[in-house]
Every structure is written in C-alpha cells, then in structure tokens.
C-alpha cells in the first residue's frame, strides 16, 4: 500500500477529533476502527463538558446528538441504611449549559459520519495488530498480513492502548492506577425522566454516589439521565476490589446499588437495555504515557487523559482536545516534512498550554488524596448519621439539638486531629 500522511488507530473521540482537524487541513487520513462502526466499542458514564473545548473544537460538534444538558448536579453519601444528598441547580446551568450527557454509540458514529463527508476513510471492523518500525521510528501499522505505511501514527486506541505499549511509550498497567466502570442502560420514557429528576425537557441530572455503593472501596456510583434512558453504574478501583476481604464479586455491586431504596424508586418500571464495562485511567498526571515518539503521537485515554476530581470525573473533553492538538502538531510537522520526536514534541507543548495538561497537573495530587479509605467509609457513614440523630424524634422529649449534634460529632471522631488534618489538606488539591 502507498504511504499516506496519517493513520489513526481507534475511532473514538480523540481519533475522530484528530481526523476532523487533519481533513480540514487537507491531509490524507485513515481512521482504523475495530468495531462495526465508531462508537460500537466505547462506553461512557457519562457526560461531556463542552465549555472547555468550545474554542478548540470550533464547529466540530455543531448539531451533535447530545442527550440532555446537565442542569442538576447531585452527590450522595451512602451509609448502610441511610443517605445524605446535595442537590444543586442554578439558572446559569440552564441558560448557559456547559455539559451534556451523551451515549457513545450514537455520538461517535455521528462524528465519524461528519468526518467521512470530509473525505476521510474510516475503516471499521479493522483491528490493528502492530506498528511497523524503521530503527527507532514508527513508520506505519500492521493488521494481519496487511501493512499501511504512514508519515505518522496516532495511537487513539483507548485506555488499554496496545499501540502505545508496542511503541514503548506506555507505563506498565498497575491495578492501583485503574478502575473499572460497570454500567446499565435503563430505558424510561422522556416524561418519566423529567418528572423523577425534576427537570424540563432536554434537561438532565448528573448524580455521583460514594460510600456503601462500593462497600467502602475506592470508587462510587453514577447516574446520568439521557433522553429516554438512564446510565446507571458503579466504578471501583481495581486494586481496591483485589484487596477487599471478604471477597466481593464485581458484578454484584450494581445489583446491590439498584436495590437501594434511593435508586429503586428512580428506575422503577425501566427495562435494562444494555450491560457494559470499561476500564478508566485513575493514575492522573503522574501516570501518563509518553505522549510522542518518532512518527507517533498518543491521545485520549491511551495517553491517560482522564481526571477524577472527586466532585466530578472527566475524560471525553480531554480526548477531543488532545486529538485536535495532535492534529495541529501533525499539520506543522507535515509542512516541515519532519515527523521526528523533536518536531512532534510540540504536541506536549500545546497540551501544556491548554486545559488538558494544566488541569491534569493541578490535580496531580488527587489520586494520592483519594487513596484514603475515610472517603469511602468514614464520611459516608457519619454524615448521614449526624442528620439521622438530629432528625429522629422518638418517644418522650427530644434532647437538645445542638448538644445531640455535638455529642455525635465528638464520638464519631470527626474532630480528632487525624480528621481535621484530612479536612485541612483539602487546600492542597
């Protein structure tokens, strides 16, 4: 096969965004996707924050198939038999939406069709097996007996990135740096979703859960409303579940979650349409892959661009942004006719100047901070308990509210030096 400008391995968000921008610049691009169509192997929680990529993406996502704009943010602390929730909504979120729930099978497929209209070849059902090298230079890819030579290869092949691994750019995958998300799609009518989540048409809710949902393990639950479905799931740290005693079977977590009173009412009458699972990078800034080599760039999940910020989780806007910045780098390299590591290092500079590596860097201490059982056991247990003690009215006179709370706070240990230090350390993250 004749040498082409760019081969992109993986038709997910970063690969497609990269192809989009390269096609605009007139480069010859092939996107290779192992699924039946782009999106068919992808899973998200999830929501896409659009605002951070508004300028970068330009008109790329105009009229994209978003599910609902997120106008309601909820967090729950789940104790064993009680829970405490924060429910936020704001006019700003409704009039100037910044994030949307999406479903990847629809979303990625739509984006791939836009790209094909621009003349990009998107080849589905095509698994890439290896890279071709010339010395320390990547000069193409290999699939079975077929070879596709290219000036540059983009490894956009997701969190497990075999391509970045084969190119020697990816650190060994350790259980502590990854979590697994297990998700169900539950179908409910549009009206039911609007009513149950107290939102208007096309408006949605993002809800994160922590505590008993993972039986105290690192991770949590999530719920996102789509147009006529709900994405409901559990994320759990791979190391956490490996070390859990007594053993818990991962697949049982989501069933127990759905049995909770708080969830049962929300999904009642809904039918499960799909069951999925996907690994999520949790290592943050300190566990990124090397981002470039001679003739190769790494984007999206493959590079480790995902961020657990505690209050929310992000990834897809990082994928899109990194794909676009990779494309900009390739366009410049193409103009100079030089795809060496040195030229492609511009990609990292661009990422550093963007929110991608700025946010990743600012949150670099987050994985260590969150590696603390107290967030998954102590706080989710005691905060709901304080409320329960204050709000429970039994037989006879009620004890004074303030002194009840004080007693509970004291006996819980939340005012111990250890806890206060923990709370104080929030200033660092």
């Amino acid at each position, binding site marked *: 096969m004749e040498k082409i400008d760019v081969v992109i391995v993986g038709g997910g968000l970063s690969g497609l965004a990269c192809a989009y921008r390269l096609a605009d610049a007139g480069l010859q691009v092939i996107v290779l996707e192992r699924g039946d169509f782009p999106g068919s192997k992808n899973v998200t929680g999830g929501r896409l924050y659009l605002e951070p990529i508004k300028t970068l993406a330009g008109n790329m996502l105009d009229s994209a198939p978003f599910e609902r704009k997120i106008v309601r943010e909820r967090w729950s602390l789940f104790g064993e038999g009680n829970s405490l929730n924060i429910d936020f909504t704001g006019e700003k979120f409704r009039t100037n939406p910044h994030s949307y729930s999406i479903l990847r099978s629809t979303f990625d497929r739509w984006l791939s069709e836009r790209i094909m209209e621009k003349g990009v070849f998107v080849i589905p059902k095509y698994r890439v097996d290896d890279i071709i090298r010339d010395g320390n230079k990547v000069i193409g890819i290999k699939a079975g007996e077929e070879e596709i030579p290219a000036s540059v290869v983009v490894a956009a092949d997701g969190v497990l990135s075999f391509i970045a691994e084969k190119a020697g750019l990816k650190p060994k995958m350790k259980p502590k740096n990854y979590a697994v998300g297990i998700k169900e799609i539950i179908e409910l009518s549009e009206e039911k979703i609007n009513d149950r989540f107290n939102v208007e048409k096309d408006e949605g809710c993002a809800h994160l859960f922590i505590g008993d949902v993972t039986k105290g393990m690192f991770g949590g639950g999530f719920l996102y409303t789509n147009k006529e479905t709900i994405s409901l799931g559990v994320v759990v740290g791979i190391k956490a579940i490996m070390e859990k005693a007594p053993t818990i079977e*991962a697949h049982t977590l989501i069933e127990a979650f759905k049995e909770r009173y708080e969830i049962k009412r929300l999904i009642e009458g809904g039918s499960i349409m799909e069951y999925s699972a996907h690994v999520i990078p949790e290592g943050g800034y300190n566990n990124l892959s090397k981002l470039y080599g001679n003739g190769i760039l790494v984007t999206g999940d493959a590079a480790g661009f995902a961020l657990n910020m505690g209050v929310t989780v992000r990834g897809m806007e990082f994928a899109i942004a990194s794909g676009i910045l990779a494309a900009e780098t390739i366009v410049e390299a193409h103009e100079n006719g030089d795809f060496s590591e040195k030229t492609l290092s511009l990609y990292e500079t661009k990422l550093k100047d963007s929110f991608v590596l700025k946010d990743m860097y600012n949150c670099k201490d987050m994985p260590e901070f969150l590696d603390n059982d107290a967030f998954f056991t102590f706080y989710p247990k005691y905060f709901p308990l304080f409320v329960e003690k204050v709000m429970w009215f039994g037989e006879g006179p009620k004890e004074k509210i303030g002194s009840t709370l004080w007693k509970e706070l004291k006996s819980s240990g939340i005012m111990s030096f250890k806890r206060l230090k923990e709370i104080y350390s929030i200033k660092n993250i």
Partner: protein
Amino acid sequence: MRVDEKLALNAFKTDKESHIKINHEICRTRCRIKYCLFICPGHLYSYNEENNEISVEYAGCLECGTCKIACVEGAIEWEYPKGEYGVQYRYG
C-alpha cells in the same frame, strides 16, 4: 437480574477462536487468589476442580480489560477480538 441474563441483552458476534488465552501452569503454580474469578464484570471466569483449570466464557466478554490488569502473575494473555467480532455496544 442475573449477570448472564444481562449479557444476553447485548449484541455479540462470536469468533470461533478465543481472544483470551490462559496459561494454566502459571495459575496452578504462581496464583493463589485467582482475582479473575471475582473481578470480571461479566463473571465469565470459572474454576474447574477436576482438571484444576480456570476457564473463560470469552463469548460474553465486555472487552474492558479488567482481568488483564488484575492478573498480576501474567497468566491471562488478552487481546482485542479480531475486527468485527466481540461486543457491539448499541448505547455505550
């Protein structure tokens, strides 16, 4: 709903050959805990006492790769199913 019933809701195209290979010798000699038996979201791994072997029902694989990461002894050799095979998510 049981996990096998959930898997039955998904669209799968099954290759004749498994994309997951298990090195039984490593399982027998080096692996004590057998994380694969409880960590797989599809609950696809099982242990057969008779031949002292782990087996995997690869046809129901969700392709998350959790087992590959958790198999710290390196007994699981895991690659993506060949193009056009495996799970095809309709929602994702």
